């Protein structure tokens, strides 16, 4: 234990030097873009910013799938020449219930309905399970696997849309990531008030162009195939809108806020893609003189009368817009519609000055704690305590280096973790020093006492650090948010402290012994 080969000496010193180099990127800006420049990131609680946890509404995803499946089933049956049937959606059981009242067409109906499954993407397993009940009713159940795939696709698509919407607002370095099955984490550094972004993310923004039903009486019950939708900005007023979607917002290629050249009102100008242009031209040609409705999330934002066929693929939405709401709508339209509504289930935002306060408090605590531990070691362990102190400094540097390499996020609890690590890191040195002291008392020669002291203390050091390590790995696995930062700094600190206490401090002691050859150890 007391012999260090030249190679080993240089390796230990090399690791410390490498640690020092790896810390440097935290202090300087990268000199060139091609250089790998890994740094520790400050958590939102230290730099200020907002953290939002969004949940994708999966019941909506499922409901929409069932509704569209129901529509398809009705069309399919009609096409098969079956007229007397009832299709009902049973959302709780995730299935459709089809009752055929033409007694002899049961088999034909089932054959026709089976095509619904075949019509889905080829090469995949059918996502529908068909069954005939005792009373002759046909059930069409969504398979759990297919439902799961659909949910995963909905979350993935939501993340994409959220990213586009957040990017449009110009937030720098946002982090958008999936969490669990149906959640999305959005981190917005520097955003103290996330209200605007919450509003942007809170809208599904599904825009549809539909025809209206001018004959319907909006005070009664809506006729089949027609919805009574409220008019945006005019409370109480409802418009009879046909359910059939003529053109979807997904067919837009661009949307920009602008001002109407005649009256200066805020409007949103949009451009259709080729499919949308063609569809819109057809519809407008066939319905000149009639109103159509522009519907956004089940609200009619505008219902202008078609004066002439619109064939250029360009249009304008005018409503009761302000500059801000026109801009927001254009952002939403450009980014596309969410497949399902998002709910904010957790929000944490910290202003930059609170973050600065937290950094200051953490730095003071860190500084004072560091000094107290060093003084303690010097007072109670003398020279060997100073060796431990230098090792402690090296440990701090190595921790920073590893955290930089991992590009870890430093949070306020993470700073507490660093401080606790410093307190516990000297434990290894204390174990070694106490052991050496004991061996000296047992009458061993200095060299022998150091040798045996290190040897005996080593397995204890491993044992005691292993348990602390396990506890914090668990915290990392199950913890969330800033606490993970705590777990990361402590686990990293445990590993680096074993190195600095058993290798670096020992190297110092060996070199010191070799150069002074003392007859008595200063313990």
């Amino acid at each position, binding site marked *: 234990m007391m012999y260090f080969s030249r190679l080993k000496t240089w390796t230990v010193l090399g690791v410390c030097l490498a640690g020092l180099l790896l810390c440097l990127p935290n202090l300087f800006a990268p000199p060139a873009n091609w250089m790998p420049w890994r740094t520790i990131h400050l958590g939102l*609680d230290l730099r200020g910013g907002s953290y939002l946890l969004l*949940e994708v509404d999966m019941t909506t995803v499922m409901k929409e799938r069932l509704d569209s499946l129901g529509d398809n089933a009705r069309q399919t049956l009609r096409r098969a020449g079956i007229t007397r049937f009832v299709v009902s959606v049973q959302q709780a059981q995730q299935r459709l219930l089809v009752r055929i009242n033409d007694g002899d067409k049961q088999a034909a109906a089932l054959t026709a309905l089976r095509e619904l499954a075949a019509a889905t993407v080829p090469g995949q397993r059918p996502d529908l399970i068909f069954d005939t009940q005792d009373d002759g009713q046909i059930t069409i159940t969504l398979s759990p696997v297919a439902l799961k795939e659909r949910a995963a696709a909905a979350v993935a698509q939501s993340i994409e849309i959220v990213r586009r919407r957040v990017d449009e607002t110009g937030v720098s370095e946002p982090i958008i990531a999936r969490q669990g099955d149906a959640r999305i984490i959005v981190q917005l550094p520097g955003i103290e008030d996330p*209200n605007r972004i919450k509003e942007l993310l809170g809208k599904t923004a599904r825009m549809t162009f539909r025809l209206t039903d001018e004959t319907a009486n909006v005070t009664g019950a809506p006729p089949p195939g027609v919805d009574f939708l409220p008019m945006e900005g005019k409370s109480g007023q409802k418009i009879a809108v046909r359910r059939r979607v003529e053109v979807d917002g997904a067919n837009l290629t661009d949307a920009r806020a602008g001002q109407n050249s005649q009256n200066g009102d805020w409007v949103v100008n949009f451009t259709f893609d080729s499919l949308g242009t063609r569809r819109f031209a057809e519809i407008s040609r066939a319905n000149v003189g009639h109103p159509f409705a522009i519907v956004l999330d089940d609200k009619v934002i505008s219902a202008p009368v078609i004066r002439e066929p619109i064939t250029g693929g360009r249009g304008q939405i005018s409503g009761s817009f302000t500059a801000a709401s026109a801009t927001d709508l254009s952002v939403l339209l450009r980014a596309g519609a969410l497949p399902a509504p998002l*709910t*904010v*289930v*957790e*929000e*944490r*935002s910290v202003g930059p*000055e*609170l973050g600065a306060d*937290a950094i200051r*408090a*953490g730095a*003071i*605590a*860190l500084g*004072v*704690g560091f000094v*107290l*531990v060093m003084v*303690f070691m010097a007072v*109670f362990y*003398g*020279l060997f*305590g100073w060796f431990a102190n230098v090792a402690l400094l090296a440990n701090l540097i190595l921790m920073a280096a590893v955290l930089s390499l991992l590009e870890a996020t430093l949070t*306020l*609890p993470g700073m*507490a973790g660093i*401080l*606790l690590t410093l*307190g*516990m890191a*000297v*434990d290894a040195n*204390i*174990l070694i020093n*106490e052991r050496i002291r*004991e061996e000296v008392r047992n009458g061993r020669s200095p060299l022998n006492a150091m040798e045996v002291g290190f*040897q005996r203390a080593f397995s204890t050091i491993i*044992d*005691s*650090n*292993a*348990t*602390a*390590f*396990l*506890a914090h790995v*668990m*915290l990392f696995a*199950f*913890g*969330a*948010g800033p*606490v993970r930062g705590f*777990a990361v700094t*402590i686990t990293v600190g445990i590993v680096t402290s074993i190195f600095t206490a058993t290798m670096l401090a020992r190297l110092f002691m060996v070199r010191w012994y070799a150069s002074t050859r003392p007859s008595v150890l*200063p313990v």
Partner: protein
Amino acid sequence: MFMRPMFRLVPDNLNFHYMRGRFLGLAVSAVLSIASVCLFFYPGLSLGIDFKGGIIMEVKTPAAADIGKIRAALSGQGLRTEGVQRFGDDSSVAIRLEAQATEAATQVVVTKVRTALEAAQPGTRVLRTDAVGASVSNELFRDGMAALGFSLAMILVYIWFRFEWQFAVGAVVTLILDVTKAIGFLAVTRLDFDLVMVGAILTIIGYSTNDKVVVYDRMRENLRKYKTMPLRELIDLSINETLGRTLGTSLTVFLASLPLALFGGSTLSGFAWCMLFGIVVGTSSSIFIAAPILLFLGEHRLRRDAQPAKAEPGVSAAEPKGS
């Protein structure tokens, strides 16, 4: 200071009979832990926002805060607050609201608070918002408890592998006693129990185990060294031999946590006070709890190789350690 140590923590050749106080130690510990468990049920822990859900907003008013006006504006928005109070300086106010029934309702409330503040004292800035919905807080609580449970289990398994089962049982029973006391401490001090506090308790567990492992390690070594010494004396000897290290490490961790408690700010001071308490409990339990439990469990088993005639090879006290 630069060469020889100025002080010794523990005098050389200390010979103190800890095991004489084993009943007293266990009794005090049991009483404290039972009291803590009672405190856990009544009045219970003050759950932090992570686990209870709800809204906390810290705001800064442009001039001195008018608490009455803010309260009136909040109730004008139909909001029931749990507390509106000043903290720090005159213009800093903390507003706490209960968890709402649904996540969406929680978000509506956050917006309403902002509106109310703007009405009460225009120019008020919201410095911090924490809004945790009911379902998320339940999950966070479940995950926090899972982290606690799994780390206890992992530590049990680790000690089981490295030592005999008596050591493992002794360590885990002591840890449970330590953790209950820490929870009692939180119940008495009304510190918020949140995720950071779970971190503190886990650190206490890690630290306390660490402490026990060192003492146990020495006992194992001494079991091999002194084949005929009665277990009781052997435990006393082992504690005396490791006392310098036990106190030394406790003090350094204590010294590292103290500035956090004093200067760490609102988030960390609760964490640090809990740590400080845990260090004291963890250190004393290594001596007065973990060791006596081992004495009770191991009196007839761990010393079997003391009488060579009855020795069973499979249950020798310890495997040879690496040298």
